Each structure stands twice: as structure tokens, then as C-alpha cells.
């Protein structure tokens, strides 16, 4: 046993530090515990990804009055769509596919903008905003469109103001990072997101769809 300078503390032979510079290190001997650098497990192996998240659900509707959200600025995720608002279901939206649109005949539908948005809670949704079909001024719709436009660059919440007959937009006062749209969308196309939002039951693409049948008075 060798001793440290104070003649008291036992010292254990060291091979790991204070090696002579410029001398090539011997090939790592895995049974030499003083070659600790060669014994570390690969960080990449420890961190390898073994599960991927399942794409999250997408809702349809205006974000709540107290919800701050952002609208995706990419026009590929905006759609001008034909929507049937089913009154018996408190105006629930049904999306009509472009292919089926000519066959709607006398069934009333609305032309609406669908904007993809994300909330502070990372929930994706489509915000449907009706498009004016006449020349009358509609402050409700105009203020909604303005809010959607602003939400492309700012975190906002949109609150109705019945007295002014319009929606008011509030910017978040905190500095909040921009959404990571790539991560949120997960390579899904607009139509994949729409399928996720409306599901098969609220996508009108055929004559025997239950809503079409109901609106034609078939049952």
C-alpha cells in the first residue's frame, strides 16, 4: 500500500488519470476497470425510441371563449368547404365531399372556411367560419375572419360581444412560443385531418348517408 503525502491516507493505484500526453493509449481492455471511458453504454442505445405517439384526435368548432389558440398559417391546411349544420343536433357540422356536392340537390348547406387551429393544451381542431353569400354586412362573420387571420401570428382568444354584435379578439400578454406545427400535424394531409375530425359518420359522400336520407324525408 502506498500512502498519500500526509502519510496517513491509503492510496489505491490509479491508471485512469494523469496519463502521459502524446503516448498512444493501449487498446481498451474491457476487463480493466481503470479504462472507464470504454465501458460507458451508448447514450443512443439508452435513448432509442421504442414507441411513437398515435396521432391525436381533432375536433370541429369554435375554440371556447377562454381558450387561447393559434391558426395554422399554411394555406394547405385551410379549406373552403360545404357544410351541413344539422339543426336537430344543435347545428353539428357534417362535411360534404366535393364529389358528392352536385348530388345534394335541394338540401341546404353552408359554404364555410375551415381553419386548422391548436390550443395551448395542444388540442387540434377545425374552426368553421361561414362565408357570406350576400352583400349584407355581418359583423359576427367579419370579426371571426379577422380573428382567424390574427391567430396565424398571435396567441389569441375570441369572445363574443352581443352588445357590439361581433367577436372581440384578445392577444395573450405572455410570451408564448409558436406551435410546432410539424410535430402537431405529424405528416398528416388536410384530408387525413378532416377524416379524423369528422369521422366516417359526419362525412357525407353517398346518397344512403343517414343524414341525407333524413333530410330527404326518407325516415
Amino acid at each position, binding site marked *: 500500500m502506498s500512502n498519500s503525502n500526509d502519510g496517513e491516507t491509503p492510496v489505491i493505484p490509479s491508471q485512469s488519470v494523469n496519463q502521459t500526453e502524446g503516448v498512444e493509449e493501449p487498446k481498451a481492455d474491457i*476487463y480493466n476497470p481503470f479504462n472507464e471511458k470504454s465501458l460507458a453504454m451508448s447514450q443512443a442505445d439508452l435513448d432509442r425510441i421504442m414507441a411513437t405517439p398515435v396521432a391525436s384526435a381533432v375536433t370541429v368548432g369554435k375554440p371556447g371563449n377562454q381558450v387561447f389558440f393559434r391558426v395554422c398559417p399554411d394555406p394547405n391546411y385551410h379549406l373552403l368547404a360545404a357544410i351541413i349544420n344539422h339543426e336537430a343536433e344543435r347545428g353539428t357540422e357534417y362535411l360534404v365531399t366535393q364529389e358528392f356536392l352536385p348530388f345534394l340537390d335541394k338540401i341546404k348547406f353552408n359554404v364555410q372556411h375551415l381553419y386548422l387551429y391548436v390550443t395551448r393544451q395542444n388540442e387540434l381542431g377545425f374552426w368553421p367560419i361561414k362565408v357570406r353569400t350576400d352583400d349584407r354586412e355581418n359583423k359576427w362573420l367579419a370579426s371571426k375572419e379577422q380573428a382567424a387571420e390574427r391567430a396565424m401570428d398571435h396567441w389569441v382568444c375570441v369572445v363574443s360581444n352581443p352588445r357590439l354584435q361581433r367577436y372581440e379578439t384578445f392577444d395573450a400578454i405572455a410570451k408564448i412560443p409558436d406551435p410546432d406545427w410539424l410535430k402537431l400535424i405529424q405528416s398528416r394531409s388536410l384530408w387525413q385531418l378532416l377524416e379524423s375530425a369528422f369521422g366516417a359518420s359526419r362525412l357525407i359522400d353517398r346518397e344512403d348517408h343517414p343524414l341525407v336520407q333524413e333530410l330527404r324525408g326518407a325516415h
Partner: protein
Amino acid sequence: MDSLPHRNIILVDVEFVARPGERVAPVGAVFRNFRTKETTRLWHDELGPLPPHSTGPETLSVAFNAAAEFSFYLACGWPLPERILDLYVEFRNRFNCLQTIVDQRVYEKGQRKIGRYSLVGALTQFGLPAIDIAEKKEMVSRINCGGPWMPGEKPAILDYCEGDVIGLDRLLSAMLPRIDVPRALLRGRYMPCVAVMEYNGIPIDVESYGKWRNQRESIRETLIARVDVAFGVYEGVHFRKKKFERWLAKHKIPWPRLPSGELELTDETFSDMSKLYLAISPLRELRNTLSETREDKLAIGSDGRNRCSLWGFSSSSSRNQPSSTEYVFGEAKWKRGFIKPSKGLGLGYIDISSEEFGIAAALSGDQSMVTVYARGDPYLELAKMVGAAPPDATRKSHGHVRDLYKACVLAVFYGMGEYSLAARTGQHILIARHMLRQLRETFPRFWEWITNRVRNAMLVGSTHTRFGWTYHVAPGANIRSIRNFPMQANAAEILRLAICYGIENGIKICGPVHDAVLIEAPLSRLDEDIARMRDYMAEASSVVLGGFELRTDYVAVRYPDRYMDPRGRQFWDTVMSLL
């Protein structure tokens, strides 16, 4: 046979007398060659200047909790082996966080329980014959009486010791196929260092400590008298629940209760309730104080040094786990004031700054975390980054905000939810939720990384440090522990490696303290040794974290000053004023 490359594999077991605070006194030892089964038995009067086996790299020494064996070697003045396989450490690593057969055993009333990680426990796990636990306890107690031994006792003690070596032989055969030997040897490298730290001990000011011990009871009574005048809940030194219940009713304070209806009296409850009802605060302080002045069992040797088993690798994160009552750093913080260097010597307390944060930054590769750590105090820098503190804020000007974000970060490491964080920090639930969201958004890569690590652990049933310490995921495993494991267990790896570097290069380390070490040196060399030890800690962190160096802070204490933990200063002054 085995596939180990070592020329000799020597199984070692020793017996010694271990009195509280003293270095061990050798009694006897048995050595057995794993391959030839040749056995050497030595009584204490037969011990030579060298062990009966070589200690170079060609010989692998195998022991169970080898620090004890090497305490014996140090007492004999023997050189310490260079290649060590510790089956205690490997057994722990293999069954860490899992139930063992010993855990499932049903005991009859009065029957002695087998220690889960004892040699008998390990042998039982593998279905190997083991000595009866009652018989073992009796032998240990016979050895610990320190002699003189009757003529028949020497062979009996050596037989007992040989029995353990034979058990070790069987255990090695059973465990070897699944031991990751190269990394096991790295773990084994630490065990002589543990023995050296135990051998060194921590210098204690025995004079003031003796005074405190003699007057402890009267000091406790004085403290109770000062505070209880406003509560009337003590009888002598005993807290009376009924009286406290009456006091609560009188002051109309609702108090959390156990399912049994009894008052919940944990310190956490007192802490939470003190935030809501300030009047409770002095009582909480008093209860803590009394707890801090409970019976004193510090193990102090005749040379005035605090020594006890440091129990390397004994927590699930593989940290040291010395006795909380025998070790001065396990006791109440104010008692650290009894640590004092002798004439001509000084002490250095060197700790790794914000270690868990730094490890999380390094391993996750989150650049925002790396930036925040690089700027200095990461908790204050985080508060600045999210706009909770102005850019010129300091720890002094915004200490409260800094502490809040520290609590939040550590809560995130543990996977704490918004409700627990709100309760812990005394903040509104909306604030707690907001802070957690801030952290998620500020450190998104960390969030992704830690979530992935937990998910992987749940999928494959285990997670590891960079040097192979393993957390096994048992049914019903605590997700929070798994989440915190990379930070805690890699911190343990760093400290172990730093201690190895220090001791192997002649630094006199007195003991480990969570993420810190206490070193001792002559005054003329103190600054130099502190600087060297800081370098070793930086190097160790770089090795474990793939090139990322953690910072260290230090305190130098020069004789005649004493060491003092700032958190214990106030109470130290109170006690000293009453002596």
C-alpha cells in the same frame, strides 16, 4: 468453468471487531481459490505484511460487500486489490426494485428475518444452502465481543468464515453467467475507496460535542417551555395529540385526518398547514427541533473521528446510504457544526452545482437547458427565460421566484402533477399548472426524452445508467421513481467515479455527502487539493455525461474554524447559547 480472463479468482471473507466510530480490528480471514478450491485460513496473529494472494490485475478478488473486506486489509496495512467483483453490488443490481424470494417469505412470530440483500438472502434467492440466520447473528455477536476467545472459538469462527466463503463460491457460480463483468469491475473499483473513506473518518470537535450530549435533555426542555406556552400541547417532552386536538378546536382550525380518524401529524402536513395558518409555524419549528435533538448515536471513535459503514450502492439509485443516525452528514444539519479540522489541517466541502439539472440537460440534449445551466444558477436563469424575473435579477433580489422555479423543476423530474406542485409550493393550482406548462414549452426536448425513457423502461422492464446500474420495473412500479432514475443514478455514477479519481490520486476524502465530498488536507495544501478534487469531479461528470462537464462549488474550512451548513446555522447558535 468460467470464462474470466484473470489468472486467479480469490474469494475473500473476513471477520473483525467493529466498534462504533473505530477502525476495524482484524479477527480472522479465509481465502479460497475459485478454480482450485484451495483454501487459506488465517487467525489475526497469523496475518503477515501481505495478503495470501496477489493484488495486481491478474487476480480477481471476489467478496460480498467488499468495503468490509478492504477495511480489514487497511487495518492490516495490506495493499488493496486492483480487480474486484462485489457480489453484494451485483446482486443488488440484478434485483434492484424487484421482489426477491426473501421478500415473499412468511415468518413465524419471533423468527429472525433474512436481509433482502444479505449473503444469506442472496443464497436463498438462488436456492443455495445458507447458514441459519439466528446462528449467524450469534456468531457475529461472539466475534464482536472482541475476545479474548476460548480455545475452541478460533476454529469455530474460522469455520463460520469459511462457510461464508463457500457460500460466496456457490453464489459466484450461480450469478456469473448473467453478470456484465467489465462494468461490474468498474463498480468493484469503488469499494476499496469506500473502505478508505471509512478508514479516514470525519474529524469532530469532541469537546463541544461532549458538552452538547451531556446537556441535551435540559436544552430540549428549555426549548419546549419557550414555545409551548402558546399551545399547551406538551407534557414534559411528549407531544399530546388530545391537547393538540383541543387547541385546534379552540382556534377553529380544520386539520387533515387519517382514514382512522386520527390527526395526520407528519411534518409534511405541519408544513402545508403552517402555510395556511401562520399560528402553527412555531409548533412545527419546535417539533422539527425536537426531532433534530433526538437521541444522539453519532459513531465517534477514540481518535475523535466519525466513522460508520457508508453502504455504497445501497439505494435504488446506487447512492451510498450511510446510517442516518451514526453518520454526521445523515443527522440534522446543525450538527455539521461539530465537524472541525485538527490543528494544522483544513477541510474542503466540494459539491456539484445543480447536478440533477445539469445531468438532465446533458443526457436529454435540450439546448435551452444547456444554455440555462451554462449561464449559472439554472433556476434563476429559467425564471428569467420565462419572464418571471427581470434580466438583472439576482438570487438576493428574486430568491423567492428562484426557489419556486427550483421546486417546479425538481417536481418535473419526479413527474409531479399540478395539484401536488400547488400544495408543495403553496401556489394556486392555476399558477402551478402554468409553471408546468412553461417548463414543457421551454424544455421540449427534455420532456420528449424523459417521456421516452420512461416508456422504454415500461416496455422492456428496465432502464440503466451509462455504466449499467439498472432499475427493474416490477409490477406496480413507481413511475415517478423511474422518471427520476436517470438523474439520480447517473449522479451516483459521477460521484463514485470522482471519489475513485480523488482517492487513487492521493486526496484524503473523509466521506461522501449526496452530491458532494468532504476532503481533508494540511493547510499548506488545502487550496491545491480542493482544486484537484474539483477537477476530478468535472472529469468524472464529463466521462459519465459524454463530454458535458458539471460545475462545482466549494467551501474551505481552516483550523481553528469549524464547518457549518448555512441551513443549520440558526439552530446551532440557539444550541450553543443554551450550553
